[in-house]
């Protein structure tokens, strides 16, 4: 009665070349696959906690406490939110274009996650390793997220949604241009599109590109805020005007997808800025050799200090659960600190030091960048649509173009004519700033002229 | 790499579909989109031969075609908007005036 068994075996054997191919595939690509799974699995969680941090920061700046109910200090709030969103009814409006409505949030999310694939979170972590077009891939693919926004807004069949979608598209197109032009300055300096080469260039030139192209960095900062639809450029979802913009008709899980896409996008733009302008995973003063050991131990010390602070705060917790939780957090911090310290003590593990420290510095810089986003959000009012377009087209884009020119001149002066690099940079930056002042002056004049005849209709979408 | 015939067949199929779109559709926007499809079919061939002959010229031409497509889309859509504003139609067979 072994007949069926042998048949099955034969089946397996007959597909064995396929199996072998799969095995070979896995053998070659397992690091990438694992890192990819980590991205897909971790980003929602990280995004949830970024939201919590944002709410806590906002509460702190607004003289209140923020989420406090779910878990100690609201630490379980993201999980509660996620569960709530998951079990919420999935409503598709009757007159909506069901398929596109269903599909659009997925596009947003997938675009953001895919673009993360090409980012280096530290020298050891990678998915698409050192592809030829590195940074361009990140930017290009993440810009596909707008498709989800515009299609979702259109498919909802609601006026608020479609206006949000139209605003969003016009804004993304305008500011991606500015952001892309700003990036070109950094690419000029590094001479490569590969992410590793860009960071290595900053290491070789002993300077972060932030200092060689400050104007480009600030242009990119503004453009990236606009690209991620964050305040003061959050017009597509301006809750006081358009209720929730393109997300108005979404609820539950689909809404969560949009939300995750947005926060993942924030991480993406922050990573791009970190890579291009803030030295990627290089620590501060990465070329000063005698700082190797102090700066190398610093991450561990910082994490340990966080743990100590948690213990200090634990005594002040009113509830026992919170006290216990603070201790748990403190112990976690100490655990991570030990992991960071072990390679220093155990010689065979020394190879892990650059990877660990690189990841720390990279994530640290990304966090600082995102903190700036949040800070601006709590401080500034929102732009109006025409003002947004003016800022983009009349100031940022010309400024970015002039800046490319200036960076080129600075490179020519220092590399070909042998000038002092800092002198060249200062001269050209001064030139760019003078141009920007001129632009602002022109813009103001234009604005005052426009406001005197403010009733004249103009096509605000056309920019 | 796969044999070139696969790519040629693919680009041929896309080219045909594009042609069908151009000929049969009335909506001018869809006609424009079909033209974009035809251009893309051409691009596949260019890239393929660039690969086969080991010469980047094919890719350079593909780049030019993409730039051309961008120009064409901008102008085409500009015309469409201008036309729509005047006549409020986007159907090709209703665009029967040379001058208005």
């Amino acid at each position, binding site marked *: 009665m072994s007949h069926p068994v042998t048949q099955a075996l034969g089946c397996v054997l007959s597909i064995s070349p396929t199996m072998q191919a799969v095995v070979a595939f896995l053998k070659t690509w397992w690091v990438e696959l694992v890192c990819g799974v980590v991205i897909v699995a971790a980003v929602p969680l990280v995004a949830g906690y970024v939201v919590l941090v944002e709410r806590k920061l906002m509460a702190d700046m607004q003289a209140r406490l923020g989420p406090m109910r779910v878990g100690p200090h609201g630490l379980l709030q993201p999980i509660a939110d996620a569960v709530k969103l998951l079990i919420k009814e999935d409503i598709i409006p009757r007159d909506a274009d069901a398929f596109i409505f269903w599909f659009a949030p997925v596009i947003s999310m997938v675009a953001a996650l895919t673009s993360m694939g090409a980012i280096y979170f530290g020298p050891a972590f990678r998915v698409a390793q050192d592809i030829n077009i590195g940074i361009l891939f990140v930017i290009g693919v993440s810009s596909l997220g707008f498709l989800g926004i515009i299609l979702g807004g259109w498919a909802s069949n609601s006026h608020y949604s479609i206006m949000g979608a139209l605003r969003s598209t016009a804004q993304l197109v305008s500011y991606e241009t500015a952001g892309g032009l700003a990036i070109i300055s950094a690419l000029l300096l590094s001479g490569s599109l590969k992410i590793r080469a860009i960071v290595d260039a900053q290491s070789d030139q002993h300077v972060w590109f932030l200092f060689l192209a400050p104007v480009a960095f600030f242009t990119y900062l503004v453009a990236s805020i606009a690209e991620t639809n964050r305040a003061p450029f959050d017009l597509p979802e301006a809750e006081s005007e358009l209720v929730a913009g393109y997300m108005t008709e979404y609820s539950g899980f689909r809404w969560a997808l949009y939300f995750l896409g947005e926060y993942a996008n924030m991480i993406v733009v922050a990573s791009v800025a970190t890579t291009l302008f803030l030295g990627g995973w290089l620590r501060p003063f990465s070329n000063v050799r005698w700082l190797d050991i102090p700066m190398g131990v610093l991450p561990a010390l910082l994490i340990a200090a966080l743990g100590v602070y948690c213990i200090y705060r634990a005594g002040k917790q009113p509830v026992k659960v919170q006290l216990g939780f603070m201790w748990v957090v403190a112990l976690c911090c100490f655990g991570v600190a030990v992991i960071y310290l072990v390679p220093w003590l155990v010689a065979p593990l020394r190879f892990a030091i650059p990877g660990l420290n690189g990841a720390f510095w990279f994530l640290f810089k990304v966090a600082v960048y995102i903190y700036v986003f949040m800070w601006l959000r709590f401080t500034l009012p929102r732009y109006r649509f025409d003002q947004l377009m003016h800022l983009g087209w009349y100031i940022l884009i010309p400024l970015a173009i002039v800046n490319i020119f200036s960076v080129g001149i600075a490179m020519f002066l220092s590399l070909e004519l042998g000038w002092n690099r800092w002198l060249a940079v200062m001269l050209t930056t001064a030139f760019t700033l003078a141009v920007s002042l001129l632009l602002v002056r022109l813009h103001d004049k234009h604005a005052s002229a426009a406001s005197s005849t403010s009733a004249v209709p103009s096509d605000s979408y056309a920019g | 790499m796969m044999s070139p015939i696969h790519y040629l067949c693919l680009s041929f199929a896309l080219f045909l579909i594009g042609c069908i779109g151009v*000929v049969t559709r009335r909506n001018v926007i869809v006609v424009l989109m079909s033209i974009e499809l035809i251009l893309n079919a051409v691009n596949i061939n260019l890239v393929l031969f660039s690969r*086969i002959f080991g010469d980047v010229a094919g890719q350079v031409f593909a780049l*030019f075609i993409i730039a051309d497509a*961008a120009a064409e889309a901008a102008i085409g859509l500009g015309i469409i*908007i201008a036309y729509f504003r005047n006549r409020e139609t986007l159907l090709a067979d209703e665009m029967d005036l040379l001058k208005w």
Partner: protein
Amino acid sequence: MLDSIFFYFFAGVAVLSAGLMVTRRNALHSAVCLVATLLAIAGIFLQLRAEFLFITQIILYVGGIMVLFIFVIMLVRLDAPIHQIRFRLQRFVAVLVILALAFEGVVILLLARKLPGEGLLIQGSAPADKLPPNSEALAKSLFSDYLLPFEIASVLLLVAMVGAVVMAKSRKRTSES
């Protein structure tokens, strides 16, 4: 193996969504299908190791040109399906064109078997990989051998931009009381 899986996947998506693009009545659905086609073609480019073209296709075509299309479709409010009546004559012409083209294609692709000129086999085994993936080579070629065409293309784009702005700009300004 992996190569052919990718090829068939991308080719299938491209042809399928291209077909959908031509047959959908709703212009916005057509646009979405075209986006899918373009992304699949970008995949084909990647599979052909033309990485720079892959990302150009995504950024320029999907991120630029298709935005324009979708934008215009939304602005002119043709999002509601338009009742489509095709003429008999048009369909006749279409069939004719398709037949002619298909005949030509079959003749060239299946009967010729060889490229004119160098006599490269288009059926049969894969040719050797002569072009490593390299966006720098592309850039060098673009900015040395093809500098003049490049400049001409940029002028073309400029002219197109100006033309589009002029045409899309409203002539008659509604006077506000």
